[in-house]
């Protein structure tokens, strides 16, 4: 064992969840005393890799070596005993136990824990409080202090700075640098390229379950213009996008959004909407006949924003104006009555899996039955048949919605509102996990709806579908809208930079 021996070496690690290949083959080496970043778009496999290294899941193939010795982790405790200590986005504290009891669970020395806490600038924490009563950012700091108290050889930090206040994040960076000073290594996973460049020595980029590039920040990419930071940033973004960027250009644009002379009247207006946490001062206007896209990385407040609009969550500030009138929806029912309808990202949230396609399509209409509360079977049959024809839903498996393919399920979830009626369709990642053909059908439908004077607000994590489906696009970062672009100008690299909160993009667009 020499000093040059990397503390962690990963070779050909693969993991599959059912039909989904989360990791195809990853090679990675983290040197001693190195802060190594792991970056990649949503679904690139970062979290799966960390879960493998933390002993939470076992890989299907490949080898993991710690300090030159091959290991197969049986449990998180085993991984920790080998010197690998993770801090996840959700802190590993049992909420009903006191912090002190949680420390006993991991056999953490309270003295060492206290010292690490003061190292993070946190003193006077009451350890006898139940962990669940502490705010999440603080709990994450406690988790970091606990992990550090065990003197790990390698820290695994999975999105530790997501939704962390800036001062805490700064202390985390200091702690990481101190750990490096003590000869420890850090595997740092983050969506924020700025902090990656600031803190890390080397970066490995994952794409579609493979490592596609590793670069040393201090070197940047040779032979291109701009400052060091700009060069390495360009190279990272290019590696994250890969051939998909080229594909988006080469694929014929089947749907060309017709140029819009003048936007119609506003169908939906948000003025400074916030929820006191994840959503901060969001203002936007959605015109009648417009398809507006919103994009952003995971956890930037999009779930909360859509929940507020759908009446499933209360805003703490700002106002929502629908058709010129202020709307305070206490319940999804009220939002629906005002024409705001949601197609959630998780189709099982919307569908009744055991019921037939027809019932699934008609269920929104049961809100407004005919006279005496009777359901007009004839009208229902007609409208359902209309929706099925319009969306070309494959009805071979119509007895139970759960037997439909993913694409057809999504069509049913949207078709429900064609039957039920709406003015603004809120769609959250409408094409997640859907084949290309169906995707284009859904884009076509959005265009048709817009042409008929309806409005569509869609969140998408797939940047390349923005120019295919939308008129305009807004970028959400840390609960705020940080950029707004015409869809025609919104190329993937610009959107990705904005979504990562990169400074130059923000200033340009503001």
């Amino acid at each position: 064992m020499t000093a040059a021996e990397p503390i962690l070496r990963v070779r050909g690690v693969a993991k599959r969840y059912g039909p989904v290949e989360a990791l195809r083959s990853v090679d990675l080496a983290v040197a001693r005393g190195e802060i190594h970043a792991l970056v990649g778009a949503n679904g690139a496999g970062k979290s799966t890799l960390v879960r493998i290294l933390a002993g939470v899941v076992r890989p299907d193939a490949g080898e993991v070596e710690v300090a030159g010795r091959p290991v197969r982790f049986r449990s998180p405790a085993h991984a920790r005993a080998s010197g690998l200590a993770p801090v996840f986005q959700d802190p590993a504290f049992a909420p009903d136990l006191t912090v002190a009891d949680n420390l006993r669970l991991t056999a953490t020395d309270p003295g060492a824990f206290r010292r690490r806490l003061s190292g993070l600038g946190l003193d006077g924490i009451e350890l006898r409080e139940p962990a669940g009563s502490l705010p999440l950012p603080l709990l994450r700091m406690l988790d970091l202090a606990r992990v550090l108290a065990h003197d790990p050889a390698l820290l695994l930090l999975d999105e530790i700075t997501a939704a962390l206040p800036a001062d805490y994040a700064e202390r985390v960076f200091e702690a990481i640098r101190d750990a490096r000073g003590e000869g420890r290594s850090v595997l740092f996973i983050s969506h924020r390229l700025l902090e990656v460049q600031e803190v890390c020595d080397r970066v490995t980029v994952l794409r579609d379950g493979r490592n596609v590039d590793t670069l040393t920040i201090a070197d940047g990419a040779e032979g291109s213009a701009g400052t060091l930071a700009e060069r390495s940033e360009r190279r990272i973004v290019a590696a994250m996008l890969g051939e998909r960027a080229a594909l988006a250009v080469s694929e014929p644009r089947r749907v060309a959004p017709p140029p819009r002379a003048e936007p119609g009247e506003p169908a939906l207006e948000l003025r400074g909407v916030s929820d006191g946490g994840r959503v901060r001062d969001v203002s936007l206007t959605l015109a009648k006949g417009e398809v507006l896209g919103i994009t952003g990385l995971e956890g930037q407040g999009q779930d909360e924003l859509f929940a507020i609009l759908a009446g499933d969550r209360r805003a703490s500030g700002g106002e929502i104006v629908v058709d010129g009138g202020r709307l305070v929806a206490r319940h999804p029912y009220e939002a629906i009555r005002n024409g705001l309808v949601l197609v959630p990202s998780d189709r099982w949230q919307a569908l009744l899996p055991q019921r037939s396609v027809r019932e699934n399509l008609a269920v929104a209409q049961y809100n407004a039955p005919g006279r005496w509360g009777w359901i007009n079977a004839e009208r229902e049959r007609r409208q359902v048949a209309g929706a099925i024809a319009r969306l070309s839903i494959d009805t071979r498996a119509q007895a139970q919605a759960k037997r439909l393919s993913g694409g057809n399920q999504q069509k049913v979830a949207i078709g429900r509102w064609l039957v039920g009626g709406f003015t603004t369709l809120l769609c959250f990642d409408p094409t997640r996990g859907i084949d290309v053909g169906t995707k284009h059908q859904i884009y076509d439908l959005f265009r048709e709806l817009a042409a008929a004077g309806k409005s569509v607000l869609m969140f998408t994590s797939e940047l390349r579908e923005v120019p295919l489906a939308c008129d305009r696009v807004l970028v959400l970062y840390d609960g705020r809208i940080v950029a707004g672009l015409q869809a025609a100008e919104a190329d993937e690299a610009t959107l990705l930079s904005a979504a990562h909160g990169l400074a130059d993009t923000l200033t340009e667009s503001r």
Partner: protein
Amino acid sequence: MSVVEAATRPLSPAVGLFARRHAWTGAVVAFFAVLLAWNASQTRNFGAFEIQTMLASTLALAYLAMAQSVVVIGGGIDLSVGALLVLANCLTARFMEGTGFGGSVLVAAGCLAVTALLGALTGLVISVSRIPDIIVTLATSFVWGGAALFVLRTPGGGTSPTFQTLVLGSGNAWWPALLCLLGPLLLVWAPLRRSRRGIAIYALGSSSDAAFLSGVDPLRTKVVAYAFSGLLCGLAGTATTAFTGGGSPQSTIAMTATLNSVAAIVLGGVALSGGIGGLVGPVFAVWCLYLIPNIMLGLGVDPSYGEVVKGVVVVLVVLVGGLLRARRSRTG
């Protein structure tokens, strides 16, 4: 004044924390005190005899509520506690019949070993098969109930009178029953509660993910919780034998006992979602549920209404407690 200040200041946060953590148990104890005072005011010469009666007749259900608590705190639920009580009752009643005091104690010890083992087995099956607790324990409740019929086909059996007196006390001697109740609390639960293994039970019920990431072995923890629960069921069965002087394999006894144990833990501050509660609150809840029909009787009301009132009290207490908890978590 400065002395008082100096004495109370460093203490008060700790006292506050203690009060908050044990607020529910405190409330149940207070509720019990009110009911006891009420009942005492109804009875002429209320004294040691009435206390002995209460402790002796609730001993089995108190053990059973503790058994249910351990499992529910660990994130499960045990529908077989009543059936295991009946099995233990039949085992002890059959084999204690005709023995002296020593023989009865030996039989009791053997029975406890059996029920603890059956509990451990239940925990093992749940952990390994990953079938939900409620289904596994529903199934085992039929198995234990059937086994009880093999042990004792009809009500019968017996026990040593000395053993009965020693477990339950008699006349004015109320303390033997209380000692029997405190025994497992002090000898098993108190050390367990403070050990890593005991904390693991709470952690598993609170958040199985966090527990797993913290290095808790879910299988071992489940087995420990169910084994302790089985031990307590064995104690409950033995207490029943001592109280009734025999055994009865009727399945209705098992069902009623199981449902009462759930009512007691809910009233006693154990959250059905796991991770919250203790064993003392449920014991006081059992006593409260015993006193309510007695008080109704004292008021000259048909005792059948007592059951109705019991049910209403459980719902009301849980409703109010839940609202208070929700408000506290919102403000603090």
